[in-house]
């Protein structure tokens, strides 16, 4: 028993260590940039981490920023586990938000049922938007990077068009979700949708590591030939990874609308849902493509997103710097894998 725990910890130590190292590299280079541009990095990081994690209200706001990121990280992570480079979360978030805004704002349902139905529709819409790329991959071999990028753009304009048709009195956003379709505000901007989100992360973890389907999916991803030899359908694994990814991204969109205090709506320019899909790729990498790792990575990055406000207010450092830090972290994470590929090539 103890051996198993020690073994488990040892397995965990390497990826966690790599992530922590990459984060430190990112923060260090961020500090360097601040020094070059004449800012005090110690004061800046102090303000950032105090703002993000130094108080209850800080934590609540950090978790608000982290909520959609936990989900979009799953979309990418599950794809990676199945050997797929699914970068379609961005568009699936938009379409999921449309689904939630539609049911939440336009269809009156009894309290309790309403919020559940609106959430479910958001997730369903996310899946529907994920399916074409999945089917193109399975039937025609279309590379998922190409198809998902294209579907992201289609989703952007399609969602803008739909927002126009779902608008209430104000043209720039959908009709706000009715009170019965809103998640309760817990404090700051955080709503109870966080519990649904974490539940989904745990469910995905169970699916991947505690079920036969999950085992087959991971095997198909890590060694498709062996999987085929063992009679596992790689196509089925791909399809499942897209569906799970669509569910997660759709929920992210729904969470931004039904838990989107104070407007409870989708903005026409996609302003309150934009970029979470792309950020999720980085979060997934930091979380080592693991649903639970993704939760921690999302909280870390949510902290950066939240703390950057205090950093800007108190230390005068432009908030865009945190995006630079995320970029550097991702590059740092990719370097060991890149080196491995190079080594293999020149052996």
């Amino acid at each position, binding site marked *: 028993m103890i051996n198993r725990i020690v073994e488990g910890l040892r397995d965990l130590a390497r990826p966690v260590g790599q992530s922590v190292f990459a984060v430190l590299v990112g923060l260090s280079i961020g500090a360097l940039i601040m020094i070059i541009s004449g800012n005090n990095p110690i004061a800046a990081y102090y303000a950032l981490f105090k*703002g993000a994690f130094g108080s209850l*209200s800080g934590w609540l*706001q950090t978790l*608000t*920023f982290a909520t959609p990121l936990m989900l979009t990280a799953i979309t990418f992570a599950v794809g990676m586990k199945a050997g797929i480079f699914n970068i379609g979360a961005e568009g699936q978030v938009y379409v999921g938000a449309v689904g939630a805004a539609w049911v939440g704002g336009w269809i009156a349902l009894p309290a309790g049922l309403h919020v559940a139905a609106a959430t479910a529709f958001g997730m369903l819409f996310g899946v529907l938007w994920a399916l074409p790329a999945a089917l193109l991959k399975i039937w025609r071999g279309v590379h998922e990077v190409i198809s998902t990028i294209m579907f992201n753009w289609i989703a952007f304009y399609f969602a*803008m068009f739909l927002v*126009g048709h779902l608008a209430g*009195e*104000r*043209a*720039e956003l959908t009709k706000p979700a009715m009170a019965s379709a809103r998640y309760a505000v817990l404090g*700051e*901007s955080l709503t109870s949708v966080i519990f649904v989100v974490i539940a989904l992360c745990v469910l995905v973890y169970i699916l991947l590591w505690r079920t036969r389907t999950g085992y087959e999916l991971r095997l198909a991803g890590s060694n498709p030939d062996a999987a085929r030899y063992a009679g596992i359908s790689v196509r089925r694994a791909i399809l499942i990874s897209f569906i799970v990814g669509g569910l997660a991204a759709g929920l992210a969109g729904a969470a*931004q609308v039904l838990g989107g*205090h*104070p*407007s409870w709506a989708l*903005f*026409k*320019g996609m*302003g*309150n849902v*934009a*970029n979470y899909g792309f950020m999720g790729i980085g979060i997934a990498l930091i979380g080592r493509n693991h649903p639970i790792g993704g939760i921690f990575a999302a909280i870390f990055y949510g902290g950066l997103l*939240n703390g950057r*406000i*205090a950093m*800007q*207010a108190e230390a*005068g450092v*432009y*908030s*865009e710097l945190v995006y630079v830090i995320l970029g550097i972290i991702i590059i740092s994470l990719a370097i060991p894998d890149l080196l491995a590929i190079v080594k293999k090539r020149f052996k």
Partner: protein
Amino acid sequence: MIAKPEKAVSKIYVVSDIGGRGDLSFNDMAFKGGEEAEEIYGVEMVELISTTEADYLPNLRTAARDSDTVLVVGVGYLLTDALLEVAQEYPDKNFAGIDTFTYWAALDAGITPPPNMMDIVYEEHKGSALVGALGALLAIHYDKPHIGGVFGIEIPVLWKFEIAYKWGAEWAVRWYESNYPSDYAAEPSTSIVNTATDKRVLYTYTGTFSDITKGYEAASVMYDEDAVAVFNIAGPLGLGINQAVDEIATAQSLTQGPPFWIGVDANQDWINPGFVISSMMKRVDFGVTRATELVRKGLFRDAIEESPTGMLLGIGTEVAGIPMEGISVSTLADLDEFIEMGVAAEERTGESVLPMTPDEIRTTAAALRAAQPDWIWTAVGELADKIRAGDPIADLDGDGELETVPAATTQEVVDSWRAIFG
């Protein structure tokens, strides 16, 4: 940490919307106002940039929590919900919103409009009518069939720009017809007067206040259709319009328009002298300084009580009995102030922003204006006088009654005008 010497600072926070710093128009004008408030009223300005709508609430709350804060200014219509929320959470702090409508949003939600929240609104329609007239007159002069407008996100504030811009263009065509009837009859087929009324103004809502390439794409199409000038009503997207103009200028070795573009909010004439014919100035900076002044004099809440729907800045407007305007068409006289804005942007970003030296900008801009015939400026001046006088001006909707420049803020009104002007 080393203890800092205690001194009493008063801070104003300027919270941008998603356009952010560097648009050289709407948001930068607000920060410019903050800098002026620092000088005039001895406050310290803190800038908070919003990159997404998710930043609005935490930005505003961070600003309100600072014990030194005397005023929080939210810049942009989209901050309405968030400002209303935070103004209620922090009743001891003062809040102002540029282009916001918290008063009406509060009434809609069935709550009392907070006494610490001031909406600052502008008469964009009046200035837009003037540049619409200018554009159409240029189209007449250069025998071009269209003028254009590149818009951001479709919000009611932008409807005011759109409808009045079209209205001003129509007014100009009629002005030309009645003042130069024989020339009007002799206009070639490519002239805007011979374009169908609903096709004269080309316009696109790009759905963004930040994606500059969309401004470029939208404007390129309009210039391909031979629009003489394109009005920027989308903040930084003006830089995309400018890029489209630059391409044409380079391809045809032009040093002066047409094609032209028309700036917005700031005096943007300096961005590309010779090609920016004029700008519809919306003095967002005045809104910030005026609100700060009211706070400093202890009159902020009185001013809200006096005009709960908001502080209105426009042409011929007054606030608390003092003439306080906020809308005008750019002149050569106010160019210097904005060249400085470009200089400041260069210092901040370390990148070259000014296209030429300040002196060259002045002479080029003056030469551009001098190159246009006098009757164009006479006509624009005439419309400006009529707007200032406040009387009904023309009957362009054909209902048999003269109207003032329409301020379209509802879908029905917008639709009725679009039925006429396209």
